[in-house]
């Protein structure tokens, strides 16, 4: 070991290798953060005032009260579940033709552009905004929420289906085509088996998302547990609200575990 090697220390390579870019990004981030915090307008006085209130607030969540509003909680949860199931089914059904059309290797150019446009529009707005408009158009209740969730499902599912079809192995479709299969036979025997395992997994995942979203479309009048939750908050019945939140978490956990089983069973 000579002195020359001792002074030459190893350094970890940086994530962004170009030093100029690295510094520009760090400085840019610093300037942005300074501005962002400058305009955040945290009212420390209000916060200090709010903290003991927050403590009382959190304390009033415990113990969760499942009993006194059991009827309306059960009603809301069931309504959420119906909305979840129907919107997932309808959303997936609509997604199948849209997704087929939005796959570049399957559809002719005009249909591809049309279907991509449908997907982009369905994806842009959060379900809550969609729900606001559907409530205006179709009246209060689960039907508006169902429509909002269905549109959200189309944006999510059709996009992933199209991407999955675009990524599929092109050899089996060609082989099936070579046997003289019709277009539907080709779809049924060459394309569908390649995408179905992942698609079933995604459908179950979307079921899970739709359930969680069904809790918020109720806030704007779209039916489901969200309405019950908002009422509980508005009446300061935080113990009932805590019960609702725990039920939501429990159902999401149950769906997540069962979706793991479904995915393993499919694959």
């Amino acid at each position, binding site marked *: 070991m000579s002195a020359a090697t001792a002074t030459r220390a190893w350094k970890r390579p940086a994530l962004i290798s170009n030093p100029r870019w690295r510094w520009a990004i760090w400085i840019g981030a610093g300037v942005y953060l300074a501005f962002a915090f400058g305009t955040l307008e945290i009212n420390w006085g209000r916060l200090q005032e*709010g903290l003991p209130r927050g403590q009382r607030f959190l304390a009033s969540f415990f113990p969760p009260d499942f009993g006194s509003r059991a009827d309306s909680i059960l009603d809301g949860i069931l309504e959420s579940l119906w909305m979840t199931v129907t919107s997932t089914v309808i959303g997936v059904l609509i997604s199948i033709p849209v997704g087929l059309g939005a796959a570049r290797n399957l559809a002719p150019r005009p249909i591809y552009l049309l279907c991509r446009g449908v997907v982009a529009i369905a994806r842009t707005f959060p379900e809550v905004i969609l729900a606001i408009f559907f409530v205006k158009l179709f*009246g209060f209740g689960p039907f508006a929420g169902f429509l909002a969730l269905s549109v959200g499902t189309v944006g999510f599912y059709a996009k992933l289906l199209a991407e999955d079809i675009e990524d599929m192995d092109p050899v089996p479709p060609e082989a099936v085509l070579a046997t003289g299969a019709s277009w539907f036979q080709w779809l049924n025997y060459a394309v569908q088996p390649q995408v179905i395992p992942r698609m079933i997994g995604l459908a179950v995942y979307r079921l899970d998302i739709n359930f969680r979203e069904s809790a918020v479309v109720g806030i704007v009048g779209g039916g489901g547990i969200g309405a019950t939750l908002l009422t509980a908050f508005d009446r300061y019945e935080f113990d009932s609200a805590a019960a609702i939140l725990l039920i939501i*978490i429990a159902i999401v956990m149950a769906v997540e575990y069962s979706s793991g089983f479904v995915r393993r069973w499919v694959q």
Partner: protein
Amino acid sequence: MPVRHDKGIPIWRRRTTARQWGVWGLWLLGTAIFVYCWQLISDKTIWMFVWDAPTQAADLANRMSPPKWGYMAELWRPLWDTLNIATLGTLLAILLAVPVAFCAARNTTPSALLVRPLALFIIVGSRSINSLIWALMLVTILGPGVFAGVIAIGLRSVGFVAKLLYEAIEEIDPGQVEAITATGANGPQRVAYGIVPQILPAFAGISVFRWDINIRESTVLGLVGAGGIGLQLDASISTLAWTQVSLILLVILATVVVSEWVSATIRHAMI
């Protein structure tokens, strides 16, 4: 290979008879559940309003156009707030999610019996409650404003970032960690030189992805008073100022498209 015999000639089939019946049974069950759920929703729907919807939609579209472009001057500030809610919320989420992810990953958790279930519960709890509901709670505690929105987005995103990150940690190549250990590295050094470089690209990708989602979610937080452009949306809808609503929707559309483009570009540049 499942075959069907037709006059003694074997013909290929996709499934065996039992499997085929199983598939039919599942379809029947699924259809029955769907029809049942649909009927319950249908009972709660006032169909007269639904049939009236096309007229309503035409009326609404009429009232919404043209967008009131002059209102834009009042939207820059809420737009900036929306951007801040999403960005600062994502940063907060990252800060909280990294320790949670290391506690939740099977190969780095300090205790698989005690800490891991707790970390997994944090992840599920954070993920199952929508940011709008987090905001609803936080507005009561912290008062209305951007700050409540930042915290709401942060708390909602912790679960998402931590879940994807811990899956990335569990999928690392153990050989590299072993090699670092063989040089005599201690625990923190093992993490810094053996694990972190392997998950850094995934981590950056997850963060940018979540930021993109958060932009979308922060546009509606104002509906419950947590700041951002949703406040203006709520106010405009309540006062039936439909030309303002259409402008706000256009602004949200543009923001979402731009953020999606930014996130796609960054992720493309990194991978």
